[in-house]
């Protein structure tokens, strides 16, 4: 396990030596002991955030490292946005940020302050479905359903961006959303269906 710590090796050795020496000192300096330790393994940094998700503001104290994806899934219980790779290589985590399709796994939560985040849960209201959701049902644009929220968020953007001129164009602009079940037939058909409707 090779890991690049931001403290130099020399600092580390010095700190370790200090720790060794400190093991002999009385308990009343234990707070100092903890501080030194904290220098070796940095403590978590917090930030106070207000993030607007599906037009609802959420205010919380978050870990600066939290990605939008983990914030949605682990903190806000909005699990419709999926984690398929966590590294921007699959598209399952696609959400809209200020109306544009974005990968939430590569977005730090802190960077979404002041922006509007839309997830699959916010695509439609009440019992009504968004036309793209209806189309995915009618065209069977999924199998296991795991990539589906990301596909739908991406598909909505694809139509909005106007990339529905041909099957090839739809396929090119939907290639940022992997589907291992290979439900690409139905995904393309769903988008065609919505695009046709929108241009009438």
């Amino acid at each position: 396990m090779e890991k690049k710590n931001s403290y130099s090796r020399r600092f580390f050795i010095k700190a370790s030596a200090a720790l060794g020496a400190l093991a002999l000192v009385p308990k009343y300096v234990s707070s100092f002991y903890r501080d030194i330790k904290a220098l070796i393994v940095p403590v978590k940094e917090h930030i106070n955030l207000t993030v607007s998700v599906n037009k609802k503001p959420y205010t919380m104290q978050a870990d600066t490292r939290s990605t939008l994806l983990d914030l949605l899934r682990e903190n806000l219980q909005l699990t419709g946005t999926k984690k398929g790779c966590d590294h921007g290589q699959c598209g399952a985590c696609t959400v809209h940020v200020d109306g544009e399709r974005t990968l939430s796994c590569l977005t730090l939560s802190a960077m979404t302050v002041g922006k509007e985040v839309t997830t699959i849960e916010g695509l439609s209201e009440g019992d009504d479905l968004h036309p793209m959701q209806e189309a995915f049902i009618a065209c069977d644009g999924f199998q296991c359903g795991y990539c589906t929220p990301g596909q739908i968020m991406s598909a909505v953007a694809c139509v909005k961006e106007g990339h529905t001129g041909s099957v090839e164009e739809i396929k090119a602009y939907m290639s940022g959303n992997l589907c291992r079940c290979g439900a690409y037939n139905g995904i393309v058909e769903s988008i065609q269906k919505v695009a046709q409707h929108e241009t009438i």
Partner: protein
Amino acid sequence: MRPFEYVKPKDSKEALRAKTPTGAYIAGGTNLVDLLKKNIAVPHQVLDVTQALSDKITLKRSGIEMGAMVRNTTAAINPTILEQFPLVSKAILAGASPQIRNMASIGGNLLQRTRCPYFYDTSLPCNKRAPGSGCGAYNGENRMSAVIGYSADCVAVHPSDLCVALAALDATVVVQDAQGKKRSILFKDFHRLPESAPQQDNTLPEGALIREVYIPKNAFHKHSAYVKIRDRDSYAFALVSVAAALQLDGNRIVAARLASGGVAHKPWRWLAAEQFLAGKETNATVFAEAAALAVQDVRPLAHNAFKVDMLKGAIETALQEALQA
């Protein structure tokens, strides 16, 4: 991911001032967040420059200026770019996915790190990530590695498509250093060859910011093409890619530009082939000769000899497509 302090400077001045030696700027985040998760980048401070840098595209008398914070998609669909610098758009659209292009910034695109798998796996040797640990790929699994301009210390390739177009079009990079001083770096001088210091990808001074990327006006807008060969049709890094641009006078080539991705530590210009093409007629034989000339200097590694033929084919194809564009 190591804990870090998050700061969001209001302008470039504040950004430059606030940055500590262990800080890292973040723009689109499409590369840095990945590197943070892999514990390859371990900054103590992350500075969000999305507000601090320009996201404007400005047509000037002698060229076009793209602010560092212009998103890739914005550049790709900009009417002026499509009309006068279409190669830039073609290269951007050949890369990543719509989502990533929406996020990624122009400045960040220049600064993205290699996708060499040895760099990305902290259990493997890599001089770029851990100087002195060796280059695992040089004698290892180097199918995706460089075929030119590499050293025994590093055979990584630069992953950008946009940069190949920028190299072809002789762009310049406007940077601002920690002291606030601005200067221009020619694109060909911006990215480095690995030599014995592969940890340094480029010549951006420590603590400096990219402010703008500038492309001078040219006469290549009518005939340009970007050809990218990869293991799948989309959303994959290049095995090889070629940006080709021709300035024509009837059947005669006045000037040509040829650059490649997936072959070197930096976007690679095929200058000899460009010179050869100047003044020649446009035909398949000439294109094949130019491609052959380009690959003459290529020195593949154990597992990427295919790049020679593929590159040659891609150059011919790109020239042909540029002609027909």
